[in-house]
């Protein structure tokens, strides 16, 4: 078998295994049902699925386990680690504010600050960032699959822009079973569930560019893990703070899809410069 055919086979096996685990976990245990079985098998199964798929694919296709991305490479790369943790915080402060302006009647930032203790918000934000960075091994599960395996493999098969788009779509659609069960967007919207799939895939294409850029720049997947962890945890908190004054549960559940979509937009937009940087970079060492 030629190298190209083998790579295609590896991508297919990887995708089937990572999709298989998430579909099986959600089908068997039901997403967000706070049962012990979901917590053990669903939660960790879903989170670790891409890493498991990476290992199994390497094992099945006898590819071996040589990988340069395990190293943290702190030297000279501390600024990228800081960027990975700080960027989502900065962006979600802006995006939650924009979302508040769009959806909360008579929205005022002064009301938000008066209604919440400013020191409390700062403390909670700093705490979420430090705690998210600490539980990065959970996000290692995803990044070790998407950034360390799928994206580099696709880059050998097609031009870089196409590889970034395809890996973003595969990553986005991987969320489909949990989006179908109400993850992020709920189930109460007219385009359900396809609207959710589309938004998630587009979002993943853009954020995937940022995470791939971080991985390429540092030669390590840990900054991407930290960025992913902070990104997932800070968004919900910021939204809860900035929508705390004037947003009722009824409005939120009726417009959850629109609110979340608007909240995700600035993060996707901020990834465009990183996409350009990633595509402009020539002659430098790529992942793997």
């Amino acid at each position, binding site marked *: 078998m030629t190298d190209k055919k083998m790579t295609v086979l590896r991508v297919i096996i990887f995708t089937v295994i990572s999709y298989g685990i998430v579909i099986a976990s959600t089908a068997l245990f039901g997403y967000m049902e706070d049962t012990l079985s979901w917590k*053990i098998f669903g939660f960790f199964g879903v989170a670790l699925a891409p890493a498991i798929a990476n290992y199994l694919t390497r094992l099945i296709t006898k590819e071996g386990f040589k990988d340069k991305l395990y190293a943290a490479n702190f030297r000279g790369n501390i600024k990228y680690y800081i960027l990975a943790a700080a960027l989502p915080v900065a962006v979600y402060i802006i995006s939650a504010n924009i979302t508040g302006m769009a959806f909360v009647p008579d929205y005022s930032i002064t009301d938000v600050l008066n209604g919440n*203790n400013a020191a*409390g918000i700062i403390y909670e934000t700093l705490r979420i960032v430090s705690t998210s960075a600490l539980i990065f091994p959970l996000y290692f599960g995803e990044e070790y699959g998407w950034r360390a395996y799928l994206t580099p493999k696709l880059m050998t098969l097609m031009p870089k822009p196409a590889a970034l788009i395809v890996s973003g779509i595969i990553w986005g659609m991987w969320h489909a079973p949990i989006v179908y069960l109400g993850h992020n967007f709920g189930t109460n919207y007219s385009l359900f569930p396809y609207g959710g799939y589309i938004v998630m895939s587009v979002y993943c294409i853009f954020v995937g560019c940022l995470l791939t850029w971080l991985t390429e720049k540092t030669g390590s997947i840990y900054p991407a893990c930290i960025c992913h962890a902070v990104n997932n945890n800070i968004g919900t908190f910021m939204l809860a703070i900035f929508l705390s004054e004037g947003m009722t549960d009824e409005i939120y559940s009726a417009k959850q899809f629109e609110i979340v979509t608007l909240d995700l937009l600035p993060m996707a937009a901020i990834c465009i410069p990183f996409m350009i940087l990633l595509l402009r970079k020539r002659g430098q060492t790529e992942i793997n």
Partner: protein
Amino acid sequence: MSGLIFKEFYQNRKLLWFIFFPFLLIPGTIVSEAARGTSANSIMMSVMLYEVIIMFFGYMVTTEMMKYDERKAWAAFIISTPQAARGQVASKYGFSLIVLVGSVFISFVYDVIACAAADLDFSALPFISNLFFILLLMLSVEIPFSIRYGSVNGNKYRAMIVILLLFAGMVYLLFGDLSIFGEPEKIAESLIKLINGEGVPDALLIIMGIFPYLSIVVFCLSYKLSCRLYIKGVESFEK
């Protein structure tokens, strides 16, 4: 570097099991407590206590790592390699960080399982995260001390901290408010309130928020200091 870190794991492999043992044994006790109808606060207290044990074992592993390399022959060898003294010191810091982060993650897994088993809507993760940064700060002082004056003196430093803590505890027992010990549930409640920042003055809240980042900076500075102290420390080795 990764080779040296692997060496640390190999040398400390027996001690590393101690982190996993509580993890393997403890969830059963939480489930039985829940089955007996113990109150939610008591179970939360147990969850936090067991996680402290896991973190404590992680910390103990990192404190034991220094003694294995205290030989002049090893020091001469490692200094002559391309890794040099900096690599040797970096491997100690890298190993400590991996073990402590690993302990946090094991605690987190345990936390998710135990709380789901007891049907609790609770996570001790913020508590564990604070504990991690306190231990990181303690290591930041202990490692350079052990590198400069040897692991025996490092143990003395640790003993001094324990004595200080015991002394503080005794002072509290003599003059402090003891009513809280009558109701262990209140300890859990006040700890959770403290971590959530409830009833904490604003200035203290900001300090609590900055503390994790400060401890990371101190840990990095401690590494730089240890690199400078390593050669001096080698001169004091007995063998």
